[in-house]
């Protein structure tokens, strides 16, 4: 019950940032469009031949899906809000309430995504309309279901990474450098720059055990029908393991941080 209130609060708080979301998602279309132009030049040079198993339509769909996934699951202001709560001492207020801050934040997160998804619907519709003839649908029901499940897990994973980075504000004065470093790794290793299938085999083997590809690449590859059978279930298991580890890690960091926080305040 009390967390349902928190959800409503999350929707309200995020509505303040609706212009940010709209402008950000409009600007977010630009690099994707740029990438599509580059890839279309590359496919022209190859006479339309597939690249690492991706034909042009699949490549277009891949980039459009990264956009959709980004507005559905990627935390936007969370790092800054949480670290600001810590630095400005607002955490004390939560200690008195019968709620746990990490759980509270976990409830706020989908509320914020609801608003960001609603706002970014317009720009995403525009780009979908433009590339409509190139989009390919998931090949079967398994791909749809497993893809949706994996996307939800990817959202949790992204949220936990943001939360963990934000809690470092207990120890560090300034976290923006760290946020940027983590973001750099996420951007490249989660497959936002290009599908990870293009990377050499040894990279793929390492990447399979790291959390990054499960933040974006993995659900999209499922939806494109690139991953199925045993690989699919194994991947989902690794992804679920990272989600659980992420949640435990966040709780642990939070309680360590609180101990330090109280020590400073007392």
């Amino acid at each position, binding site marked *: 019950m009390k967390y349902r209130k928190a959800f409503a609060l999350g929707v309200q708080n995020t509505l303040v*940032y609706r212009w940010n979301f709209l402008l950000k998602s409009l600007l977010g279309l630009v690099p994707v469009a740029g990438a599509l*132009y580059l890839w279309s030049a590359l496919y022209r040079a190859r006479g339309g031949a597939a690249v690492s198993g991706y034909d042009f339509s699949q490549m277009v769909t891949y980039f459009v899906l990264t956009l959709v996934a980004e507005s559905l699951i990627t935390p936007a202001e969370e790092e800054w809000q949480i670290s600001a709560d810590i630095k400005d001492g607002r955490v004390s207020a939560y200690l008195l309430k019968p709620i746990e801050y990490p759980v509270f934040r976990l409830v706020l997160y989908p509320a914020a995504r609801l608003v960001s998804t609603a706002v970014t619907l317009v720009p995403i519709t525009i780009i979908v309309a433009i590339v409509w003839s190139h989009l390919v649908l998931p090949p079967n029901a398994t791909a749809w279901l497993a893809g949706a499940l994996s996307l939800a897990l990817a959202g949790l994973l992204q949220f936990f990474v943001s939360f963990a980075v934000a809690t470092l504000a207990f120890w560090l004065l300034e976290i923006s450098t760290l946020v940027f470093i983590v973001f750099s790794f996420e951007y490249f290793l989660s497959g936002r720059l290009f599908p990870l299938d293009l990377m050499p085999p040894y990279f793929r083997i390492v990447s399979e055990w790291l959390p990054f590809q499960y933040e974006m690449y993995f659900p999209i590859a499922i939806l494109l029908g690139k991953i199925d059978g045993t690989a699919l279930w194994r991947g989902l298991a690794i992804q679920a393991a990272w989600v659980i580890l992420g949640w435990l890690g966040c709780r642990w960091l939070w309680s360590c941080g609180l101990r330090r926080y109280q020590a400073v305040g007392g």
Partner: protein
Amino acid sequence: MSRLALYGRIYAMFLRNSLIRDMSFKVNFLLWIVVELLWFAAQLIFLEVLFSHVDRIADWSKWQVVALIGTHQLISQIFQALFYMNLSNLPELVRTGKLDTFLLLPVDSQFSVSVRQFGLDNVVTGLVGIGIITFACAKLGVRPDLLTVALYGLAILLGVAVHYAIMFSLATMSFWIVRAQGLIYGYYSLINLSRNPQDVYRGVFGFVFTWIVPVILVANVPARILTRADDPRLPGLFSLAAAALLALALSRLIWKLALRRYSSASS
């Protein structure tokens, strides 16, 4: 004391403070160098992947594109050394009202807001960019003459002006929108279009980002001057110069409007 000397003295003071600041947060300073180099490396890996599938993209060879990316790196590092930190702090200054301090200084407020902090780390990463460009030139067998180097340098400076105008316009959005902090990352979305050969862009998109928001020209014009001797030089240079001047004038106009809004908000 002349106006120019006053600006010179104030800038020297800003510079001194920035160096002291950078040296007192050494870990942060080194980390930023690492971040920048990681991004640069990621771009080069991406190129390697692309060119493992084709020999040329839109009639650009691999090493020509490497020179293009190096040029993009050089321009953005010069821009970031001079302006980036200041402009990314601007929304916070507006929100907290700390902007008042800048308005009280006896110099132009756009000047002091834009250049107060200098990023020494970007000098290091900019030099890495120059190294990559030189390497690409050697691979291409290009030996630029003095005129080419001069035109290249000029085009780089004009590109820095375009970078500045774009990020400045985004940062001043904070006068109208709450928390534009996340918004200024839109700078990367726009300016990174310049990393691709301009010949890949087509249609309305290509037109808009070449002529209206002239980001595509920025690294492309100097890179063409340096590595594509057969391409005509002056048309590109002239359009970049026009774009830079217009963009700067526009940033000035936006600043004036924003300041009017700021003073009316606090009263």
